[in-house]
């Protein structure tokens, strides 16, 4: 079921061919309910990986010392409409990797492509939406104006702007709050606004950096369900960074386990839970087996006797 990380090109994806192509193969129930991604996905469709990482290295220079290697020889392919989580202890480079995909950090070496284009081009073409750990909303704009922001930048027409903003706020269930200011909303609601904003120009790829990390467990579980519903309805590919093992297993089609110093992929776990997933999924035996599998993959990173990674993995909720 699990395959250890294999650097280099397509071999990095699980060796079994069955789970590589259109994610519909490993997620049968979703195939009918996951429509083709709208907007910027090229006509080549499922044959072009949504994200391709090959040999990514990233080192940060350090004053008077050896550079910190945040990422070492990372290779990973994410197929269209997959939901891939990156999980690992602090310092494993998962947030750095996400930002490399988003062209917010330039790798020291390696190739990163989004939908067949270099990541820098994908950023200029606005092929992805990003949700950060903090909602990063603008205090001075209402909820509606915040969600509208990306459309203003890409200069969509006024009528189209209004239509899309309404749609996305409906999607996250906040259309009653259009005229509110961010400070009037709870943390969970602010994050939902941030998600609506990330989706408003209907990107093919969604990058999420621990978006629910600052929220309480109940809100987090509820928002997990929301994200899955949105994923099913929009057919967006999602790359999701998290600290939480249950969250990673519940949401993903694959969980990529990373280890620190230097940051690298140590394991990839296929999640074969059926779609659509719901509260019952969280109570199923298979779910617990997979959570255990991921936890053990995290523990295995430092081999016997290493307490730091293990306690961190256990400290991560689950």
């Amino acid at each position, binding site marked *: 079921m699990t395959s250890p990380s294999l650097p280099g090109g397509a071999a990095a994806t699980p060796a079994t061919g069955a789970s590589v192509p259109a994610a519909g193969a490993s997620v049968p129930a979703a195939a009918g309910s996951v429509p083709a991604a709208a907007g910027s996905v090229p006509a080549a469709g499922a044959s072009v990986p949504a994200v391709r990482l090959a040999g990514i290295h990233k080192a940060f220079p350090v004053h008077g010392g050896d550079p910190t290697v945040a990422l070492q020889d990372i290779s990973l392919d994410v197929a269209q409409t997959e939901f891939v989580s990156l999980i690992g202890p602090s310092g494993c480079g998962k947030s750095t990797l996400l930002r490399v995909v988003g062209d*917010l950090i330039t790798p020291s070496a390696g190739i990163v492509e989004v939908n067949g284009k270099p990541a820098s081009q994908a950023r200029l073409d606005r092929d992805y939406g990003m949700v950060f750990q903090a909602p990063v909303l*603008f205090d001075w704009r209402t909820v509606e104006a915040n969600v509208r*922001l990306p459309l203003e930048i890409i200069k969509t027409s006024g009528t189209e702007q209004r239509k899309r903003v309404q749609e996305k706020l409906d999607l996250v269930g906040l259309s009653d709050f259009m005229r*509110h*200011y961010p400070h009037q909303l709870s943390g969970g609601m602010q994050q939902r606004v941030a998600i609506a904003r990330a989706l408003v120009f209907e990107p093919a790829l969604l990058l999420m950096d621990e978006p629910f990390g600052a929220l309480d467990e109940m809100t987090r579980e509820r928002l997990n369900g929301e994200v899955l519903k949105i994923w099913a309805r929009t057919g967006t590919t999602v790359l999701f960074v998290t600290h939480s093992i249950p969250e990673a297993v519940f949401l993903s089609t694959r969980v990529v386990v990373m280890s620190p110093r230097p940051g690298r992929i140590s394991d990839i776990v296929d999640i074969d839970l059926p779609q659509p997933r719901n509260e019952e999924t969280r109570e199923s035996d298979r779910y617990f087996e997979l959570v255990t599998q991921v936890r053990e993959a995290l523990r295995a990173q430092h081999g016997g006797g290493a307490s730091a990674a293990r306690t961190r993995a256990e400290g991560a909720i689950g």
Partner: protein
Amino acid sequence: MTGAAGSYQTPARRRPFAGLVDGLRHHLPAIIVFLVVIAAWELIAGSSGRRIIPPPSSIAGAIVRESDLLWKSAMATFTEAIGGLIIGTLVGLAVGFATARWAVARDILLPVAIGASTIPLIAVAPIVNNWFGVLNPLSKMMMAALLVFFPIVINVTRGLVEVQPAQLELMRSYASTPTEVLRKVRVPNMLPFLFTALKVATTLAFIGAIVGEYFGGSSTVIGRIVLTSMSSGSFDLAWAGIIIGAMGAIASYVVVVIAERILIPWNTAVRAGGP
């Protein structure tokens, strides 16, 4: 999706005057203390017969007696102060934008601004009066502008430069141009800083105008009235002038507060009450 359990209020589009009425109610104790002080002042000053700090009643009398003169002088002084406020703010904004945009401008202009702010106004006053003409209101406006400039430029620069890095990262993910970042992020971020500076600047503008008047000017300005009536012993008129001057400064402060609530309603609602 059920309504979230999170705390939220109805939209904060409160009318600015609603806030003022609430503020008045909130400040009732202070108002009462103020009135008690006035009453005590009346009793003590009246009975001890001292002339230098006349009782409120004789000050009120002076205001009524010389209402024409005081009105004309108040208008003249207020014009100087407000004119100086406008000039100082415009120049401060221009320099603030320049120093935020170009590091070179920052290196040149900021030290000059800091240096200028340390020169005592009293030393500069005769020079400014000479330069622009002692009877010309512009000389007093320039005094006011000199005092207004520094807090404005510092706050505008801060507001434009000190933006949350996460917001800049967000804009980068949208491949925005620096101009878009300026318009959509930096300028709105700067507005609360600007209003804070304006609140300080209105008071400084009045100080600048009146101190300028002390060093020479037409006779129908507050500063000269205070000066001449002090030296001729009519302290009630002098105090009338001082109080009118103070009221002008307070009134413009209140105007800035109201303008802030109209223009940046999100800001005053965020901060837990208070100016």
